[in-house]
């Protein structure tokens, strides 16, 4: 027992456990309130007021939904594969919750002279971990969709599977350019490299960022890529047969995924917990409050910045959802395989060339991009044309 205490003391086990718990709770909380936010945002975008009866401004809405779902009849269809039917939503929820483990939400706190990083686990293959977890996320959907023994569910599951696999490729390739820049797989290192404002990867990797965000939409099954569950085609898609809390898990997992992908996007491209003039702020804090307290307050500000980025990311997900129509299955595949993957390769080449050229990276990237666009336009202008310049001719 003594040994354990010593070990715990050395590794700051309790603090770490506390941070993990807090991150876990915040993830769940944000996901729960994302459902409320989604309804509110949808309402405001559509000139409605959204839920406003359950509590002030409808704030109790997620609780009402959860309460209802818990006490709803738990229904397993007779023809369904019982175990897999239960396994599906659990897997979905599990993988969704796992992904935020390696996200650095803030710098570090100084406690008792020891440094506690604001991150659940720090591993040096952070991106690969995220990637691995994301690639598993599709199982929940596939298994659930298949086990329901319903044609609409199965179609949804199949769509989900092919969509997720396809977009993972483009996503991975867009990340490779980031890895080339940073030379590390650790999310914390990548975030630390974007210290300040102009160092954010989005300025070095605009194209990569775009591809990554598009893929994030696809991986989260959000409009315009919500084919696995699109209401007007497949009724409910993979979760057509689900009721009660199992359905709740699926819906919840979607929001957790949104949270996780916003967090990862913020870390990879938007500087994570970094914000403009943070050095000045930190210096002012340090001189005002002393080293320890100043550092901790600075970290807290960083965490707030990180969360505001994540929340904006979630808002962006919703904003896009209520704006655009969705793709068709084959168009989605075409976009992934014939659009995003080649673009990601181009992005890699541009990055590589600009790294080798030795010019300041950002300039090299932008020049490369402009050259690419010019070439593309020239090729486009010289393509053989048919007589009638109408759509689809």
């Amino acid at each position, binding site marked *: 027992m003594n040994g354990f205490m010593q070990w715990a003391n050395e590794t700051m086990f309790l603090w770490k456990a506390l941070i993990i718990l807090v991150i876990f709770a915040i993830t769940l909380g944000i996901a729960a309130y994302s459902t409320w936010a989604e309804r509110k945002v949808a309402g405001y975008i559509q000139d409605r*007021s959204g839920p406003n009866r359950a509590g002030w401004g409808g704030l109790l809405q997620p609780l009402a939904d959860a309460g209802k779902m818990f006490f709803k009849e738990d229904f397993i269809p007779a023809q369904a594969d019982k175990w897999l039917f239960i396994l599906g939503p659990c897997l979905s929820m599990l993988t969704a919750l796992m992904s935020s483990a390696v996200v650095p939400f803030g710098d570090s706190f100084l406690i008792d002279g020891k440094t506690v990083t604001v991150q659940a686990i720090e591993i040096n293959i952070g991106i690969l971990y995220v990637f691995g977890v994301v690639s598993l996320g599709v199982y929940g959907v596939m298994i659930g969709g298949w086990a329901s023994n319903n044609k609409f569910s199965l179609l949804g599951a199949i769509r989900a599977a092919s969509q997720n696999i396809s977009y993972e490729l483009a996503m991975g390739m867009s990340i490779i350019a980031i890895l080339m820049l940073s030379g590390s797989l650790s999310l914390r290192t990548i975030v630390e490299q974007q210290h300040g404002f102009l160092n954010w990867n989005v300025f070095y990797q605009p194209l990569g960022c775009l591809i990554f965000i598009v893929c994030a939409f696809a991986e989260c099954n959000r409009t315009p890529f919500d084919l696995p569950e699109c209401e007007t085609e497949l009724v409910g898609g993979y979760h057509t047969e689900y009721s009660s809390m199992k359905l709740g898990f699926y819906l919840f997992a979607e929001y957790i995924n949104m949270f996780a992908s916003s967090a990862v996007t913020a870390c990879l491209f938007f500087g994570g917990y970094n914000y403009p003039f943070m050095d000045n702020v930190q210096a002012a804090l340090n001189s005002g409050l002393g080293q320890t307290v100043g550092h901790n307050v600075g970290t807290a500000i960083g965490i707030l910045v990180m969360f505001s980025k994540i929340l904006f990311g979630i808002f962006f997900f919703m904003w896009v959802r209520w704006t655009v129509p969705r793709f068709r299955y084959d168009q989605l595949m075409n976009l992934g395989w014939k659009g995003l993957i080649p673009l990601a390769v181009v992005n890699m080449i541009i990055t590589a060339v600009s790294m080798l050229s030795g010019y300041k990276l950002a300039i090299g990237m932008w020049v490369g991009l402009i050259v690419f666009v010019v070439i593309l336009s020239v090729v486009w202008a010289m393509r053989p044309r048919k007589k009638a310049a*109408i759509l689809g001719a």
Partner: protein
Amino acid sequence: MQLTNRAKKTDKSELSLFERSYLPSLATGLGITIRHFFMKKPTIQYPEQKRYLGPVFRGHHILKRDEEGRERCTACGLCAVACPAEAISMVAQERKKGEEHLYREEKYAAVYEINMLRCIFCGLCEEACPKQAVYLRHDQFVPVFTEREDVIYGKDKLVEDPNNRYRRDAWTKEDAMKLWKNNA
């Protein structure tokens, strides 16, 4: 096939490279939606806020009384005939002596029932009534029902309450037109 000289082809011109990149339409779309995000909402907070339904809205039925509080209905049955849903039924009765203060005409409806779930609120009964007795209120709905037994409204629910008279600006369309002229 050209049949007239008024045909006009719709626009179906090809997309430019820029438009093909998805980005311009996405940007305009996002612009439109965010503008709506900050717009004033037209939502009516219904149970608290009620909307004026227009001067001739066809709502809850009412059997009018005249100025002296007598029932106007003479049980001629025209409303029942005019009703496409056959929702109105009535039993006529001769007015007895001493009931002149209750009924305006010599005959009156002893039973007057409307099946509120059959009724389609088309207003034909109001139009058919020669005695201006039956009206569809412009200010009140028929409430929702939870029991099948409640849906047939008898005279107790239909006849106007003398203490809480139903008022409207114009009782006929001719009156309404006069009103417009006066207001103009």
